[in-house]
């Protein structure tokens, strides 16, 4: 239930920000379309812990801040490799997931792909196949560069559900 309340408030805020008109007619249109969207997603059964992880919001913000710093460093690295200051040495490695539930796997593989210089290309049940542009990036990933900063709370509520 709290998922639906959270989704409804987010959608309403989005409507208000995107429309820019605040007369009663437009706001009632917004309420109608938010209710329609909620009804559709209720029928599709797509709103749960996985698609809308509110139990993670606090730790995810901290994760994003660290991740954006790492993305910045990786960007500088890849730019130097493109203009030829550093060599291009493609590597293919298989790294295990830090956590075993589906949501953590998705977040981890997405973070790996979002970082330039490493891209996940295949998901196995226990690990992910990663293509990196350099040997340094490959060793850093194998040593747990991203896995160390992974939010520890990610598994708890999911394991409790199972």
């Amino acid at each position, binding site marked *: 239930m709290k998922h639906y309340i959270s989704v409804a408030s987010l959608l309403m805020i989005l409507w208000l920000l995107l429309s820019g008109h605040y007369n009663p007619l437009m706001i009632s249109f917004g309420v109608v379309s938010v209710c329609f969207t909620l009804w559709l997603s209720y029928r599709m059964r797509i709103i749960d812990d996985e698609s809308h992880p509110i139990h993670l919001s606090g730790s995810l913000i901290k994760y994003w801040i660290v991740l954006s710093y790492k993305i910045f460093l990786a960007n500088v690295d890849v730019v130097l490799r493109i203009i030829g200051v550093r060599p291009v040495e*493609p*590597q293919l490695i298989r790294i295990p997931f830090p956590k075993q539930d589906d949501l953590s796997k998705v977040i981890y593989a*997405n973070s790996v*792909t979002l970082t330039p210089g490493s*891209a996940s*290309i295949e998901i*196995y049940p226990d690990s992910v*196949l990663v*293509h990196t542009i350099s040997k340094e990036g490959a060793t850093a990933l194998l040593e747990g560069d991203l896995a160390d900063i992974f939010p520890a709370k990610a598994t708890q509520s999911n394991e409790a559900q199972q």
Partner: protein
Amino acid sequence: MILDWLSYTLITLGALLSVIGGIGLHRMPDFYCRLHAVGVTDTLCSFLILFGLSFQAGFSLATVKLFLIFAFLLFTSPTASFSLSHSAWKWGLTPIGVREDAPSMKIKVREES
């Protein structure tokens, strides 16, 4: 005034990064490496350009829209590049310069099916 110059610097850096990404699309040796070049233009370049433009807009709805554009780009780009690289891998495109002990093409059969 300072904000103006800050936004000019950010936008110029972003445009520079986008051109570098375009050059990287031609300099990189194979498909999987080009994926990383596109990753640069998807993350830092779009961030710098949109962030610099939001300084020009000031506090208004335009800033929120720029932030939303950036958020959509950030959420969709890893999904798009994962589905690209995954279908290239399943199709059988081998990356160049891969070590001998790397997972061979035989491993790509999915275990669970």
